[in-house]
């Protein structure tokens, strides 16, 4: 056990993790491949804060979450939840955490939401009236009671209801620390917004520590008190959202909405832009077209805008909108990781 500092709910120190995968070669042959998922991940989560682990797919977010949830052993490094070692004191860690790993699965389809929670509550050591009361409380808290969905079979739930039930289960034992892996993944915007509001309420009104992973920058910006940006198994930045944005306060974001002709691929276009401008860029599908985003210095905005527009013109791409914006967390992410969407 780590001598517990009252302000640190989660501590991760130099976590490394590799997976061995095999690539099939012929009928019996196979090639061994080692994938490094985490390469020395370290961070602290303060008690009572919403902490975001932000990164693209395959960055190591889920691996980190599984290690903290005691479902996966790290190759090296240490991690503690409320001072308990996640490897050597796994059972103690399990008594203080609430976990949601997937909003789409993880419940018995032929049980109602309430029955699922009663079952998992017993599995986690709760019983009798205390359990019944707690199930009622969490169903109400996540809004399933208001929706009249608490006694519906899980198989009849919408994705939004499933996500709420997943959060309800994570809350069941009234844990001090909640670990949520992509809790809004796949949800429509209104459901995602409601769930985010709920998480903020849980953290700030119920005093829970919430560790949430996401690849959605917008979500991280409005949900998290602090974020760690993780890329290729390494933490590349960690701070308050405002402070991270401050790091690129001298930059602006050039955004161009464009439509591509059928014979031009997004990846070839984006690599041409990167080659011409020498800037990290990101591309997002939007309104039937693509939004290209480049983080630049305000001084060079004119020059780079003309350069990109010329390039798009040469590729016969129609331009629908050009904007220069204040930096967002998304821009920090692009700047720090050089990450592209394709």
């Amino acid at each position, binding site marked *: 056990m780590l001598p517990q500092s009252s302000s640190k709910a989660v501590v991760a120190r130099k976590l490394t993790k590799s997976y061995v995968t095999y690539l099939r070669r012929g009928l019996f042959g196979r090639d061994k491949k080692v994938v490094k998922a985490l390469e020395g991940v370290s961070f602290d989560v303060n008690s009572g804060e919403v902490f975001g682990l932000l990164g693209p797919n395959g960055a190591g977010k889920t691996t980190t979450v599984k290690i903290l949830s005691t*479902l*996966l052993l790290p190759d090296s490094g240490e991690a503690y939840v409320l001072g308990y070692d996640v490897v050597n004191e796994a059972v103690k860690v399990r008594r203080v955490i609430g976990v949601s790993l997937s909003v789409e699965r993880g419940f018995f389809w*032929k049980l109602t939401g309430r029955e699922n929670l009663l079952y998992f509550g017993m*599995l986690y050591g*709760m019983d009798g009236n205390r359990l019944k009361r707690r199930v009622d409380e969490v169903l109400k808290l996540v809004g399933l009671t208001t929706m009249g969905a608490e006694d519906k079979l899980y198989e009849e739930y919408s994705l939004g209801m499933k996500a709420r039930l997943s959060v309800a289960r994570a809350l069941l034992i009234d844990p001090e620390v909640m670990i949520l892996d992509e809790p809004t993944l796949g949800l429509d915007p209104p459901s995602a917004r409601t769930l985010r509001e709920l998480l903020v309420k849980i953290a700030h009104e119920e005093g829970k520590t919430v560790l949430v992973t996401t690849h959605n920058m917008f979500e991280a910006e409005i949900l998290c008190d602090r974020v760690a940006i993780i890329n290729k198994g390494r933490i590349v930045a960690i701070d308050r959202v405002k402070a991270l944005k401050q790091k690129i306060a001298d930059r602006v974001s050039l955004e161009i909405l464009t439509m591509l002709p059928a014979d031009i691929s997004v990846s070839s276009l984006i690599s041409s832009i990167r080659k011409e401008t020498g800037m990290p860029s990101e591309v997002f599908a939007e309104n039937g077209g693509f939004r290209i985003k480049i983080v630049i210095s305000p001084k060079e905005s004119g020059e780079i805008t003309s350069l990109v527009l010329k390039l798009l013109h040469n590729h016969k791409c129609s331009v629908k909108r050009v904007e220069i914006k204040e930096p967002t967390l998304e821009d920090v992410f692009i700047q720090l990781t050089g990450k592209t969407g394709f």
Partner: protein
Amino acid sequence: MRLVTLLKAGLTLDLYLFKNNRAAFISMLLWPYLVLALILGMGLSFGNPSSFKQKVGMHIDPIVYFVASTFIALSSLDVMWGISGQILFQRWIGTLPYTLIAPYRTSVTLIVTYIPRYLLSTFINILEFTPLILLMNGLYQGSIKIAVLLLAATIGMFPLLGFSALFASFLLAIKEESNVLSWINPIILMFSGAFYPAYLLPYWARLISHILPTTYTIELARTAAWLGSPDLTHITFLVGLLAGITIVYNLTAYLVVGAGEKKAMKEGAF
């Protein structure tokens, strides 16, 4: 944390599943009769009833023999499916990680939540065969046979718990996704003498049958099938043998399952 709460969790889950899924409940009621038909068919396909009696060396009704075998085979299958198959089922529906983060050792969670289901289904199975056994043996002898069968099923469960936990940890460690149990279980039953007495199997097959806990459970049930009056010496001998095997399998499971769980957690099998 009390283990009794885990037991209640297992019972609650089963009751909810039966309540909300009547098709599953009805098929569970039909299942024993279907297995009896299969075992009778397979057993009788090896020879006719008179040659069966001749080889077994007793004046025994093959139907009674196979009813007893079916009951024990069902119970044995149930334990193996209930614990090892649970890993596959929960992995498919995505509940496995949430089961594993229960504050107990994984093997404890899997075994203890399973026990109520075993007792429930064993009770239902014996209830289903009770009229048949009483009809063929009369009230007195039939009751004795039912009692010995229940004893066999209950005592036979204990070594199977360890055996199945070993198998479950193996499935976890190799990240198995396919339904290996569906072809392993009939083989285990064959070597255990469910279809034909184990002592009549070839020498090499008998070597395998000696290490399977199901062999002794089925032997106990077989004893029940030909008993005219309780042969306490034979029953005590078999119960003692099962107790010994229980210790061996559960001790091995305790040592090996921990290593299997660790390997699974290291490789990210959850």
